[in-house]
């Protein structure tokens, strides 16, 4: 019951309920998705779990790339198209280091392999951090005050330039890590074999676990950096409000460059893991995978670090479910379209992403 302030009489108020048609469609789609997953689970559980585990593995790689996108977007509100290509260059650098410089091959002792892998990780992270910071210096910094379209177009230009550097360095074909007959396609000097199997055909192999083992410390290091260090605080402050951060004495330019450095390092680690797990990189893969990772970042809520990880895992799961499940699954041909459809749906129905906060301009 509500009282009219002027006349003092009681008014009966009827609460208007009803569902917004847009969110109704969104909810319907989610329900359909849920039904599809459940039916598949019931029909072929071992395939389902296999897909799940593969999805988590791929999702980890996507999460690392998505973190790079989200870091840069959070601080500059710029979609760094070139990030995927930095990841691709990291893959090529890793393959070159492991294959040619260190010359790892199947049968090498663990004591040879792991220091070499860790050294490659360090080199890839440093190199890609520097590449990313250079791109920022050359292409984005002079355009800080320009209208929105301009840095975006410059990012596309930077992406193409990096791709062509890869073509010039390694040629237009697949760059392959000299790998023998590793069953899962992963590098053959990694421990092969399954950790456990289940059902008729399900398995979880050592390379899958190694991907997670390599990803987790990087993520933890990033969390520590962002939450517990001064530079991380500077990054968060600059992302929140650039001018206030400047007034607080934070060197905004240096912080932005540092963010690009970190994002590049993340791409570097993702590139190494990709090289170890998939063993081949092509110059145009960076752009494709970068877009998928960007979808993951948007799905989780762009600008939001845990969101990027969640988004990455979800996109990895979507991809692997689509590729592997059998009941009414669109199949591998349609994966790209499905991921982009997810992007469009997210931007239409929930632009702030799963973990983000709604802003007036829609994310």
């Amino acid at each position, binding site marked *: 019951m509500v009282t009219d302030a002027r006349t003092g009489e009681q008014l009966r108020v009827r609460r208007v309920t009803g569902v917004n048609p847009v969110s109704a469609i969104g909810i319907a789609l989610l329900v359909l998705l849920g039904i599809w997953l459940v039916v598949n689970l019931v029909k072929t559980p071992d395939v389902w779990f296999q897909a799940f585990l593969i999805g988590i593995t791929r999702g980890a790689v996507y999460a690392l790339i998505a973190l790079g996108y989200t870091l840069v977007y959070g601080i500059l*509100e*710029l*979609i760094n198209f070139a990030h995927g290509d930095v990841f691709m260059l990291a893959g090529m650098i890793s393959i070159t280091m492991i294959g040619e410089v260190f010359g790892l091959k199947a049968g090498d002792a663990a004591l040879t392999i792991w220091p070499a892998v860790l050294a490659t990780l360090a080199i890839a992270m440093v190199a890609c951090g520097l590449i990313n910071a250079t791109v920022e210096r*050359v*292409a984005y*910094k*002079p*355009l*800080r*005050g*320009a209208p*929105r*379209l*301009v840095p*975006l*177009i*410059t990012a*596309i*230009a*930077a*992406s*193409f*330039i990096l*791709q*062509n*550097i890869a*073509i*010039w360095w390694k040629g*237009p074909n697949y760059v392959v890590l000299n790998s023998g007959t590793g069953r899962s396609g992963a590098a053959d000097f990694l421990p092969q074999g399954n950790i456990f199997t289940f059902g008729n055909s399900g398995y979880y192999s050592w390379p899958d676990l190694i991907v997670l083992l390599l990803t987790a410390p990087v993520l933890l290091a990033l969390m520590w950096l962002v939450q517990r260090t001064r530079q991380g605080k500077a990054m968060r402050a600059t992302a929140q409000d*650039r*001018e206030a951060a*400047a*007034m607080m004495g934070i060197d*905004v*330019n240096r912080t932005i460059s540092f963010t690009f450095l970190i994002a590049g390092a993340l791409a570097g680690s993702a590139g190494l893991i990709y090289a170890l797990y998939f063993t081949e990189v092509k110059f145009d893969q960076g*752009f494709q995978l970068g*877009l998928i990772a*960007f979808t993951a970042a*948007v799905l989780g809520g762009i600008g939001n670090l845990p969101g990027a990880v969640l988004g990455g895992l979800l996109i990895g799961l979507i991809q692997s479910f689509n590729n592997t499940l059998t009941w009414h699954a*669109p199949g591998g*041909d*349609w994966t*790209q*379209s499905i991921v*982009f*459809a997810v*992007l*469009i749906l997210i*931007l*239409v129905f929930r*632009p702030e992403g799963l973990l983000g906060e709604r802003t007036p*301009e*829609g*994310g």
Partner: protein
Amino acid sequence: MPESFHGEHHGGEDTHDEPEGGPVRLVVTDDLRRERLTVLFRPLLYIPHGVWVRLWGLAVFAGWLVAWVSGIALGRIPSFFPGFVARFVRYDLHVRTYRTLGAQPFPAFDGSSAYPVDVRLPNPQPRGRLDYFLRPVWGFPALLGTIFLGIAAELLAIVGGLIALVLGRIPRDIRNIQVLFAGYGAQTFAYLGFATDAYPQLAADVSSSREAGVVSRPRAADLWWHGLGGIGLSESRWHAFSPLKRRAIIAGTVGVLLLVIIGPLAGIDVAAVITYFVFVFLYVPEWSKLGRAGKWVLPVAFLTLAVTFPYYAGKLYTIPILGAFPDVHTGTVMLVYVMMALGLNVVVGYAGLLDLGYVAFYAIGAYTAASLASTQFAGQTASGKAARFFNFGGVDIDKSLGGIHINVWLLLVVAGLTTAGLGMLIGLPTLRLRGDYLAIVTLGFGEILPQVARNGNNLFNTGFNLTNGPQGITSMDGIGFGSWLNTKVGLPANYLNAANADNLFFWTAIVLVIITLFCSLRLRDSRLGRAWIAIREDETAAAAMGVPLMRTKTLSYAIGAFFGGVAGAYFAELNTGANPDAFQFQFSVLILVMVILGGMGNVWGVMFGAAFLAYLDQAGLANTGAWINTHLGTNFDVPKYEFGIYGVILLVVMLFRPQGLIPEKRHRLEFEQGVADEPLYDVTA
């Protein structure tokens, strides 16, 4: 010995205002600032001076021989000679310091006095025959010293140049050393040339006024004005000329440069001369001011040139480096790209919405036209014959093959409308997103649609063949006017069967481009166009002024899609089919680069950018690669790096000239005069 001041009978200006017997003085009023652009291009800028100083030096040497002989034989030097040499010595000093970064301004070509590094030479006195005879002997060590110091100065100039590129100014000590070395050379020549009696010394009174201040960011135009300042042409004087005079001067200079630079390399071709005069005829006079008919002269001229292109294409010459002029088929492809660029211009240039998925519209247009004018939907009956047949104005149709065949002219419009409809459908949920999200979403559509095309032969496992999968649709019907019109009026029945098919496609493309151009121009000047420009500049203000945002944006998207669809349909007809391999993201970027390079929002700039880049894409890059490989002995496969080159073009345009080659009116004003909003804290400093 009498003193003489100001060189009354020697002709030189301030050179000889020292009393007899005084030292040579170097007067330096340089402020250490070096403009980076001019430092970078200094070797290039030096070339005219390098040529002129040698020519003048030859003349001086010839005169010196005469003077020397006269001094030995007659006991006296011609009276004009010392002044003449002094002038040359001055000029040589200016040029030498300019070359080694000892000074900043572009020297004048006549050794006139206003230069930051100058020399004061004491007057020479009459000497005896023996003195004149022995002068070269005494001067020879100094000459050696000059050569040696010259080499050192060059090396130092490299170091100084690198520092100047970074700091924008040269260190005082380096400048002083350069001045000293150059001054020594000046003294040597003056001594040897009888302009002074003071023996060259490596010491000079050097003073510098005004320390270096903050160097502001140079415009590219500053480089021009730096050089032109040497011939007395400054920016304000240039703008004081009438436009007609300016254009005439530019046309004349272009002609002279072409003659001097390209003439010796490639010979003089009649067609090239004709082209030049056509260019002068169209460019110089102010046609638009010549009455009502005047403003039609340029469009009609261009139209005539375009329409008659097939007739003179074969006679055209080869442009150096870029290769031969495009043939008629390449010209048709270029025109289709121009059409697509004009379509994208409506979305990106007028409304300011970054569309990265333009290839989707091209694909939809192409597939719509191709599938509705071919045997794609023929189907199959049980006995193997075609199940469906529908003919509505198709040309040269074989009934037994079945399929839907609609007149291709009609299909151009139908394809455009379909694409526009789908564009509106795509736009409705996405156009309310912010600029960068919109870009990504359009990119997503640009990726989805080709995948649909590629997998369309078995849509959702139902067996329905929409797009014939990876092979695409390969046998599109011909375009033409049919046999009735052929016999009555003589119009071609079926382009594909005609003898001059290339020409017919070319002329039809011209007609389509004219229609698109007309629509673009009218839209730009309409209420809708102004609404688009308002949205592009500031959405919130536009909405506050009552512009319906969603409707206007959707319309821009739809119209851009329409033109893209028509262009795609025509392209499909040109290639007699539609193939999913042609629809890649890079295509969208290519069209985007055309629009941006040409000038976002400026129709003429976009047309020029589109034609140029389309030519590069089709033939120019391959030709340039071949030229580079043959002339430089390298083995570059230039077309492989095509998109890297476009990336560099985009980057350079965005960094240095974001308004494009021919800026749109408002952008030009914005970038020249600046926008009024100032950030609270400038993080770019």
